[in-house]
């Protein structure tokens, strides 16, 4: 990875309405922390014409209305600061200097209750026999290590989690399922994840959460945001049923707290 002086990100154009700031070329907690820090900085201090950001593992895409952004930045006197030709680019690179990634104290953790039992866990035995662990031990290890949400993508509310216990690595199913119900928790290779909407997929399903990871009629529709930690908490069948009813309410709120306090 080549990066400029002051450890600045690479700046790439993705069309005239999007600039991508690339902080690295791998999957790395430190790199992603800088991505999230820049995202929050821009969200808190949006520039004229700013629309939204798309944070990914190692880069932040910044989407904007180029006419507003470029014209208003000029009008605001960036010209006087010698930034005329590349006002927006300079502004974004400047914002990328001295990023202060989240203090450990600020990190948030979402508790995701998961029922690892019966019909909700059709592939638990398969993961157990592949890994040589007992089903109970698979559950203990899956719930025993917090995962980090690097980014969301693929479908609404789908989180790319990192940090699963490596001993749980299990290859995907040879024949993917056509329909996986929303809330299913699976393992695919080295990754674990939660299916937010009904979709096809080849992951080993080891449980299901009663939480609605995506509900377009709720505000917010998605509560898991990039940079958050996820802790899977084992629950039994009756608890699953009870929480599923609660989570269906439009005023339902997830259990998100500071990571340090949640130890």
């Amino acid at each position: 990875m080549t990066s400029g002086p002051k450890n600045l990100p690479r700046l790439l154009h993705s069309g005239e309405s999007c600039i991508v700031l690339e902080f690295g070329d791998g999957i790395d907690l430190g790199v992603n922390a800088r991505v999230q820090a820049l995202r929050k900085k821009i969200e808190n201090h949006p520039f004229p014409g700013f629309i939204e950001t798309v944070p990914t593992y190692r880069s932040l895409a910044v989407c904007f209305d180029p006419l507003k952004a470029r014209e208003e930045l000029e009008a605001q006197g960036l010209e006087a600061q010698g930034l005329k030709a590349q006002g927006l680019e300079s502004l974004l690179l400047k914002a990328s200097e001295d990023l202060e990634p989240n203090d450990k104290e600020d990190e948030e953790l979402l508790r995701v209750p998961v029922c690892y039992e019966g019909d909700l866990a059709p592939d638990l035995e398969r993961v157990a026999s592949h890994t040589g662990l007992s089903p109970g031990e698979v559950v203990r290890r899956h719930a025993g290590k917090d995962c980090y949400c690097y980014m969301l993508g693929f479908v609404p509310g789908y989180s790319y989690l990192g940090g699963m216990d490596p001993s749980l690595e299990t290859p995907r199913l040879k024949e993917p399922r056509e329909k996986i119900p929303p809330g299913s928790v699976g393992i695919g290779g080295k990754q674990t994840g939660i299916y937010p909407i009904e979709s096809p997929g080849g992951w080993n399903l080891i449980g299901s959460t009663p939480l609605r990871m995506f509900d377009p009629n709720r505000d917010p529709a998605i509560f898991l945001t990039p940079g958050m930690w996820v802790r899977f908490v084992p629950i039994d069948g009756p608890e699953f049923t009870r929480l599923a009813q609660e989570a269906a309410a439009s005023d339902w709120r997830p259990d998100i707290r500071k990571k340090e306090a949640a130890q």
Partner: protein
Amino acid sequence: MRLLIEKPGVFTTVQDLGRRGWQMLGVPVAGAMDPGALRMGNILVGNGEDPLAQEAAGLEITVVGPWIRVLEGEGCFAVTGAEVGVMKNGVPVALWRAHRLAAGDAIAFSVFSPLDPSLDFPEGSAFGGRARAYFCVSGGIDVPMVMGSRSTYTQGKFGGHQGRALRSGDILVTGAPSVLWAECDGLECPPGLRPVRDPSVALRAIPGPQDDLFTEEGAFYSGEYVITNSADRMGYRLEGPAISHKNGADIVSDAVSLGSVQVPGHGQPIVMLADRQTTGGYAKIATICSVDVGNLAQRLPGQKVRFAKITLDEAVALLRQEEDHFRQMRHLRAAWRSRPKKFDFRREGAFLVRVEGKAHRVEWERLE
């Protein structure tokens, strides 16, 4: 107005300019595939007077159009985009022009081809070889806002009318129109202000963001590609000269823009469109500039595509020019609505207003 969908067409959805602000959480933008056509249609019917207001939603009609009956109310409509035959009560009406609409009226679209089994359109009125037309109404199509937009995202089954394409028997309601909607009747968008949607024109693209991962861009910009049958609101797969990567096609997943040209390992480009996933793991050689995205979205499988390289500054200038066309159209609208009328205004009059069942007589008189 209340509108009854008598026949839905093949794939008719409610679309505005899309859902912004949620890509961070994996929610696709969706929205009109030819945003320029939707925006022009909205100007014609008097929508978007308030520059801060959300763009009104219209119907995006794909290849086979719907039949629509007005059950209640009055307003005006315009059809933009594909050159398609449209009839109001059996009489062909001009595209890119606002027409009055009242209870009882029936709107019928032809199939977007010369062969229309069900309607007797005058010859030549019904074929344009384009994919999408927009039915815009005064007040816009009023469906519930989902995450800040009325656009239908059919794959996620949300937005628009019940998260899906329209079916026979669906009833749509229009929103509050501009107070001057009736004055828009007859307003037309001159050909020079319409977005260029000529299928023989090369699509202008800005290199990047991963153009450095390809051995040479030559094949991409000099080659001629054909749109495959795998072409929908999510993206268009093209077939033509293969583009080769330096070290494989895979990258660590990053954001996918509207018009991004992804090239997977087989070397055949895929252009990402309105319903695209927010992120992807293939290297992107170029991005079609915003004003030309609609020119691809209007093409059909089997039609050809060429790309022309432009700079970032050129793309911004094109966008400015397009914005200027919208501005000019709004000026034309203002002039049209205040034009001298041939008929004489009455100097006085009276009418009845019924409020909660009680009739009130209102008399008025013009003061000079």
